[in-house]
C-alpha cells in the first residue's frame, strides 16, 4: 500500500489513466502533414534563392541535350501517347491559355484537417501572411518574409520540358543535401552546448544523423515530387504550369484519372504516382477547366507509417487575387 499522501495520489493518477492510449493514426497523420508543409517550405526557400536557381538551372541546361528525347526524360513526347499522356497534354494546353490574375496578392483558402487556413502571398516580394481558424491553432502566424518565390522568380525558370526535368532533379538533390547538413549542424551545436549525459545522448544522435542514408528515390520519383509541389503554388504562371504538366506526361509511372473528385466532391483530374522505393502515393487533383490545384494528398502505406495507412491532405477551397492584403477575418 502507498505510504504517503503523495504516493497515494501518484497511485491514484496512474490507475485512473491506466489503459488510455492515443489513436494510432494521430502521429502518422501529423508526420504526413508536417512533411507536406516541409516540402512546400523547401520548395519555397530553395527555389527562392537566386543562387540556387542559377546553380540548378546550370545543371539543367547542361543536362538537357543529353537527355532530350529519351524515354522518361520529359523530352520530345512519345509518338504513341497513352490516354494519361493525352490528358496531361490537354491539361498543359489549357494551363497555357490561362491568364494570370490582376491583383498583386494571391489569397488561398484551404482546409488542413480540422482547421481553415488562409494564406496571402505577395507575388512581388514573396511575403506570406497566414490566418487560421480552428481549435487549438493561433489565429495568425508571423509574416513569413520572402516565404515564397516571387512570380518573377518562377517566371525565370526554364519551360523546356527536358531542362525543367533536369532542374527538378537537381533541386531535389540540392535540397536533400542542404537539409542533411542543416540537421547535422543543428545537432552538433546542441552537442557543444550540452553537458554530461545529455551531451553523450546528443553525440549519439549526431552520429546517427551522419550515418543516416536518405531514402534513395529514383529520378522519376524526384521529378514527380518536385513538380507536384511546384504545381501547388498559385504564383506559378501559365507557361511554367503548362511545362510542368508536360514533364509529368513524360514521367513513367504517372497515373491519371479524368473522372476523379476531390474530398469536397468537386470534379477533378487526379494525377498520381506511387513512389518506387517507398510505396508512398502522391496525388494532385486539378480543376479540369482552370488547371488550378483543388487538393493534394500523400498516402503512406502501413509499412511506412507504423502499421497504419495515413493520409496527409491539403484541400484548397478557393484561390483568388486581391490588390491589398486582406484583414484577418479570424482576428479577435
Amino acid at each position: 500500500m502507498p505510504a504517503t499522501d503523495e504516493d497515494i495520489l501518484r497511485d491514484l493518477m496512474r490507475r485512473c489513466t491506466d489503459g488510455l492510449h492515443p489513436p494510432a493514426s494521430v502521429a502518422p497523420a501529423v508526420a504526413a502533414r508536417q512533411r507536406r508543409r516541409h516540402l512546400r517550405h523547401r520548395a519555397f526557400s530553395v527555389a527562392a534563392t537566386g543562387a540556387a536557381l542559377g546553380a540548378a538551372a546550370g545543371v539543367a541546361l547542361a543536362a538537357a541535350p543529353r537527355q532530350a528525347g529519351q524515354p522518361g526524360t520529359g523530352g520530345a513526347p512519345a509518338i504513341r501517347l497513352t490516354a494519361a499522356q493525352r490528358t496531361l497534354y490537354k491539361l498543359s494546353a489549357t494551363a497555357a491559355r490561362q491568364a494570370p490574375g490582376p491583383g498583386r496578392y494571391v489569397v488561398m483558402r484551404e482546409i488542413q484537417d480540422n482547421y481553415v487556413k488562409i494564406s496571402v502571398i505577395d507575388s512581388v516580394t514573396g511575403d506570406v501572411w497566414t490566418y487560421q481558424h480552428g481549435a487549438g491553432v493561433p489565429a495568425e502566424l508571423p509574416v513569413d518574409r520572402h516565404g515564397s518565390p516571387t512570380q518573377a522568380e518562377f517566371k525565370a525558370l526554364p519551360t523546356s520540358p527536358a531542362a525543367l526535368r533536369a532542374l527538378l532533379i537537381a533541386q531535389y538533390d540540392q535540397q536533400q543535401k542542404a537539409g542533411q547538413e542543416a540537421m547535422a549542424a543543428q545537432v552538433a551545436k546542441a552537442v557543444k552546448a550540452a553537458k554530461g549525459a545529455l551531451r553523450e545522448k546528443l553525440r549519439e544522435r549526431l552520429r546517427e544523423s551522419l550515418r543516416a542514408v536518405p531514402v534513395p528515390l529514383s529520378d522519376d520519383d524526384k521529378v514527380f515530387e518536385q513538380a507536384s509541389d511546384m504545381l501547388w503554388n498559385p504564383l506559378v504562371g501559365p507557361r511554367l504550369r503548362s511545362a510542368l504538366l508536360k514533364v509529368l506526361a513524360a514521367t513513367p509511372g504517372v497515373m491519371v484519372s479524368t473522372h476523379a473528385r476531390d474530398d469536397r466532391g468537386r470534379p477533378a483530374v487526379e494525377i498520381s504516382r506511387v513512389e518506387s522505393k517507398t510505396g508512398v502515393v502522391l496525388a494532385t487533383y486539378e480543376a479540369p477547366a482552370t488547371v488550378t490545384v483543388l487538393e493534394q494528398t500523400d498516402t503512406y502505406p502501413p509499412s511506412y507509417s507504423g502499421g497504419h495507412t495515413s493520409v496527409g491532405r491539403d484541400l484548397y477551397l478557393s484561390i483568388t487575387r486581391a490588390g491589398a492584403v486582406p484583414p484577418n477575418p479570424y482576428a479577435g
Partner: protein
Amino acid sequence: MDRGQARAFEAFAAESGAELLRIATLLTSDEHLAEDVYQETLQRLAARWSRVDNPRAFCRRVMHNIVIDQVRARARRPREQRLSAEQDSTDPRSADSYGAVELRPALFAALDSLTPQQRAVVVLRYFDDRSEAEVAQLLGVSAGTVKSAASRGMAQLRVHPGLAAIFSTSGSAL
C-alpha cells in the same frame, strides 16, 4: 521534416504517446479534450522536430501552455457542463479501495479545484515523477514556486470531498 525525421517522430509518438495522453487527461479532466491537446502537442513538436533536443520535455511544456490557453479561453465564455462531474462520486471507496473507474470523477473534480499551475505541478511531480528542479525548468518558474504550488495543491486535494476519505483512511501522516 524529411522521411527519416518522420520515422523518428512516429517512433517517439509510439513510445511516448500513451504517457503524454495520460498527462493531458490529468491536466484537462476530459479524455476528448486531452486527445485534442495531445494532437496539438504533436503538431507543434512535428513543426520543430529537428530543433528540439528533448522532445519529452518539450511536449510537457507545450501541453501545459495549451491547457493554460484553453482555461483562459473557457473563462471568457459560459462554463460548460462536464458529464464526468455529474457522476456519483460520493463514495470513492465503493467498488474496491482503488477502483479506478469509480475514482476517476472524484480525482478529476479534485484536480479541477486546483489552479492551473498547482495542477501542472502536481501532475508533473507526482504522476510524471519529475524533480522540483525539472518541473521548475519545464514550467519556467522558480523551484520555490514549484515547492509551494505542490504543497498547496496537495493540501487542497487532501480536503477535497471526493478524495478526503482516501487520504484519511490510508494511514498516511497528515
